[in-house]
């Protein structure tokens, strides 16, 4: 049996932290260029995820589960590195490929580029 009153303080503290970080995500786009915005957003997301994992999901002190989790994330990371950094970043057919140079190949798209973007 645990003491509810003393434990719940931590939950509220984490909530405040998460809300503040969410507020930060709304400010970031105006601070960074489009290219740097995404990494910055993901960085904030990682901090939020860490807070949730450690405190809401009680991962703190769970050695075996943490190691397994790190292993799983490492595998995802490897997929990202191989597919994105090794393969797509070195895509050799950018100029010829239908999927990367659409405006020269399909008529529908060319018209749309000129049309105003709806909001």
């Amino acid at each position, binding site marked *: 049996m645990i003491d509810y009153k003393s434990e719940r303080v931590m939950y509220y503290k984490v909530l405040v932290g998460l809300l503040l970080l969410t507020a930060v995500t709304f400010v970031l786009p105006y601070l960074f260029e489009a290219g740097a915005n995404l990494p910055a*957003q993901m960085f904030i997301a990682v901090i939020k995820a860490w807070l949730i994992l450690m405190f809401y999901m009680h991962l703190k002190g769970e050695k075996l589960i943490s190691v397994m989790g790190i292993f799983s994330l490492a595998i995802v990371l490897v997929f990202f590195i191989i597919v994105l950094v090794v393969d797509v970043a070195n895509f050799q057919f950018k100029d010829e490929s239908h999927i990367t140079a659409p405006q020269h190949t399909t008529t*529908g798209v060319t018209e749309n580029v000129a049309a105003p973007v709806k909001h």
Partner: protein
Amino acid sequence: MAHEYIPEISTDRDGNEHVVQGWQDDFYGGKLGFWLFMFTEVLMFGAMFLVLTYYNMLHPADFVTASASLNRFLGGTNTVILLVSALTMGLSLLKMRAGDVKGAKLMIWATIILALMFLSIKAVEWTAEYNHGVFLGLDALQSGNAHSKPFGEILFFGMYFTMTGIHGFHIIIGIGLMVWLLKRINAGKVSPEHHILHWNIALYWDIVHLIWVFVFPYFYMIGAASGGTGGH
């Protein structure tokens, strides 16, 4: 299987006794199993983020344009709702562990209501997008016609509807699980002494939140600077 489980004892050659871990009443085993399940969720959404990043690398400008047209006001509201619901779910588990079954049930009800709010807002958002002609199957997201959007935007919206849709599906499953949990609590199967089910469903709700923590900025925020908050 209803009877009280008494762990077996095994004896080594020197006569020392060792308690055997059985599959019954294995709290840590249940928790470990659920974490393993959550890793599969991570891999699943990891693969979808891989697809998203793949096309983001090929069409960065289109992605910013498409993202700018999303409704950041509703998306942000949903983020806060999920955040608060993670708190209520956590508190319900806390109350359960502290022996306050009634309080725990109230907090689960609060979580269900927040989840329903999340889904309603999602519905409003999708309806607005549908009315603007941006939805799976509509002309704007098909190729080769007068309304076709550029490739990058088609792919952005394709993944947007797929990923938020699959996330929404997880929310619906979560609501189902919570209703089931309430039934189990009422039946006395989940109690302060035996709360593995409650623990795991709380974990499930956290992973659903965790996925949204990444889905939200990737879709809504990359084009925020050029789009305001209004969206469709």
